[in-house]
């Protein structure tokens, strides 16, 4: 059994293809582990392997996937971590989940998350916090904390999540696994319960870079049901690179300087990884992203503004929670939403509503959109000189449960290094670069739009040199 769990997803798919193990056997092994989950990573686990398990002929071989709660799955609870959607079973399935099932990755379970993907610690879930498998007193990061913890702890071979302002990369970093946020528009958003529509993007959580490439190549593609999805140019290639010869890596001082609040242990690991990259043949130079420090502010206007509209549909009329159904309409709305949303969601709805309200639009939302333009220009300029931009993924390692719950601003600062890429819509990957005081540290590489294949290749070479061992979290 433990042998099965130690296989990467690609290795497991290969064994199934070779007839050495049965897909159902693998599914059951993970299903049992997921069902015994002590991390609160899952909100729902499949009862049994799916019927048609003749998946050995499919590209993903029948290796099951854990799916963040906010992806709609037909007939299966899809609650986005919220009380307002408790028990909600949608009548349709998200495109990305359907594509993966078709490619041979059936649904293993739904994973816990910050409510409506708002958070960096997974403490904002109506279904309780998720625990970090490296240290159960600590958070796994967020918002896709359940997916990250499940993969890190070996409760799932791989998982998918969503990244709006770091919600894949940051928990991947804090849990010591690989997380990729693809180019905006690469994966369909149809069926993803929206947080901030112009930023949300689905992506994989995996144990290694190869698995990430394998999973994401079956997630991307234009979906006629998502107007903002794009045809992926070519196919995402499986990574092979063992070195970084000829690659130019830029270190943005605007982000890695003192303003970012990067912990010493994280900085140490980052610098060690830079050295490894040089050893692999990369050239490393400082680079400028002058507007990137303002990204967090722009992000905390744009995302809440979009969220305030996206979450307005939770009104107690068609589905989900209803409170005070016998009072007048406005009271029913206001009490339903008051009772159904958690503190952080309410905070962001308030912030977003305020930013869009009469008299403030230009000063807040309008300005934030202009900053967004400048940030995208900064990256464009940087990529004329550099192949990739590299930073630590998160300024800190996993913090203790409750440590930042009383200070929203401190919590938001966790996203300082992640949101610039989100606003620019470019792909970025986090890979584990080592441990700091026993806790994983993430290393982030970001590339131009649709550079996923090259990005994965570079990450693969670095991963080999780093030699991170995540087995400790899979006990």
């Amino acid at each position, binding site marked *: 059994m433990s042998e099965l769990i130690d296989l990467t997803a690609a290795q497991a798919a290969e064994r199934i293809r070779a007839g050495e193990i049965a897909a159902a056997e693998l599914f059951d092994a993970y299903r049992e582990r997921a069902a015994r989950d002590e991390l609160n990573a899952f909100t729902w686990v499949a009862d049994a392997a799916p019927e048609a398990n003749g998946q050995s002929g499919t590209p993903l071989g029948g290796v099951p996937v854990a799916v963040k709660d906010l992806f709609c799955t037909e007939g299966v609870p899809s609650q986005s971590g919220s009380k307002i959607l408790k028990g*909600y079973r949608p*009548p349709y399935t998200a495109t990305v989940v359907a594509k993966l099932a078709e490619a041979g990755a059936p649904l293993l379970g739904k994973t816990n998350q910050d409510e409506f993907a708002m958070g960096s610690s997974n403490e904002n879930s109506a279904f309780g916090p998720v625990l970090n498998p490296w240290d159960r007193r600590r958070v796994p990061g967020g918002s896709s904390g359940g997916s990250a913890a499940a993969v890190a702890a070996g409760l799932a071979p791989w998982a998918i999540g969503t990244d709006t302002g770091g919600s894949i990369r940051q928990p991947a970093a804090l849990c010591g696994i690989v997380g990729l946020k693809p180019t*905006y*528009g690469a994966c369909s958003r149809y069926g993803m319960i929206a947080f901030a529509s*112009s930023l949300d993007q689905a992506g994989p959580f995996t144990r290694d870079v190869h698995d990430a490439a394998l999973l994401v190549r079956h997630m991307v593609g234009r979906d*006629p049901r998502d*107007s*903002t999805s*794009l045809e992926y140019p070519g196919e995402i290639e499986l990574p092979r690179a063992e070195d970084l010869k000829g690659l130019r890596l830029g270190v943005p001082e605007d982000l890695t300087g003192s303003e970012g609040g990067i912990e010493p242990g994280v900085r140490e690991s980052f610098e060690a990884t830079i050295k490894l990259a040089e050893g692999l043949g990369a050239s490393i130079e400082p680079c400028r992203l002058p507007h990137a420090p*303002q990204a967090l*502010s722009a992000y*905390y*206007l744009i995302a809440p503004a979009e969220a*305030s509209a996206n979450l*307005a549909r939770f*009104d107690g*009329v*068609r*589905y*989900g*929670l*209803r409170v005070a*159904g016998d*009072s*007048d*309409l*406005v*009271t*029913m*709305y*206001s009490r339903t*939403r*008051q009772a159904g949303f958690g*503190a952080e969601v*309410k*905070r962001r*709805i*308030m*912030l977003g*509503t*305020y930013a869009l*309200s009469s008299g403030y639009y230009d*000063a*807040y939302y*309008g*300005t*934030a*959109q*202009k*900053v*967004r*333009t*400048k940030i*995208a220009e900064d990256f464009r300029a940087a990529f004329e000189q550099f192949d990739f931009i590299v930073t630590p993924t998160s300024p800190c390692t996993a913090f203790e449960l409750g440590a930042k719950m009383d200070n*929203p*601003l401190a919590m*938001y600062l966790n996203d300082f290094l992640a949101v610039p890429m989100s606003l*620019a*819509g470019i792909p970025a990957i986090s890979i584990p670069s080592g441990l700091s005081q026993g806790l994983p540290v993430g290393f982030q590489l970001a590339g131009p*739009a649709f550079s996923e294949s090259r990005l994965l290749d570079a990450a693969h070479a670095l991963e080999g040199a780093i030699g991170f061992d995540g087995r400790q979290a899979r006990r």
Partner: protein
Amino acid sequence: MLDRDQVLHVARLARLELTDDEVDRMATELSKVLDHIEAIRELDLDGVSPTSHVIDIVNVLRADQPTPSLPRETILAAAPEPLNDGFGVPSPGAA
């Protein structure tokens, strides 16, 4: 920055019946966040066009071809108040 009245006004717009405590807390917390965010208003952004979308595509259009609709019993299964084959609500005209 944000006072209680502003918080209450925004909460009404957002249809949130905040508790008294929450109104106070919201005023403090949002003010703090907005203070931090204010910095972007000092940037020189004259002549910069806003980005509402990073992807530069236009005319994503759908052919006017029907696709199947959902069965009524499916959609009403999730309804808090099914009523007359529809979704019941307190009447907006009720006193």
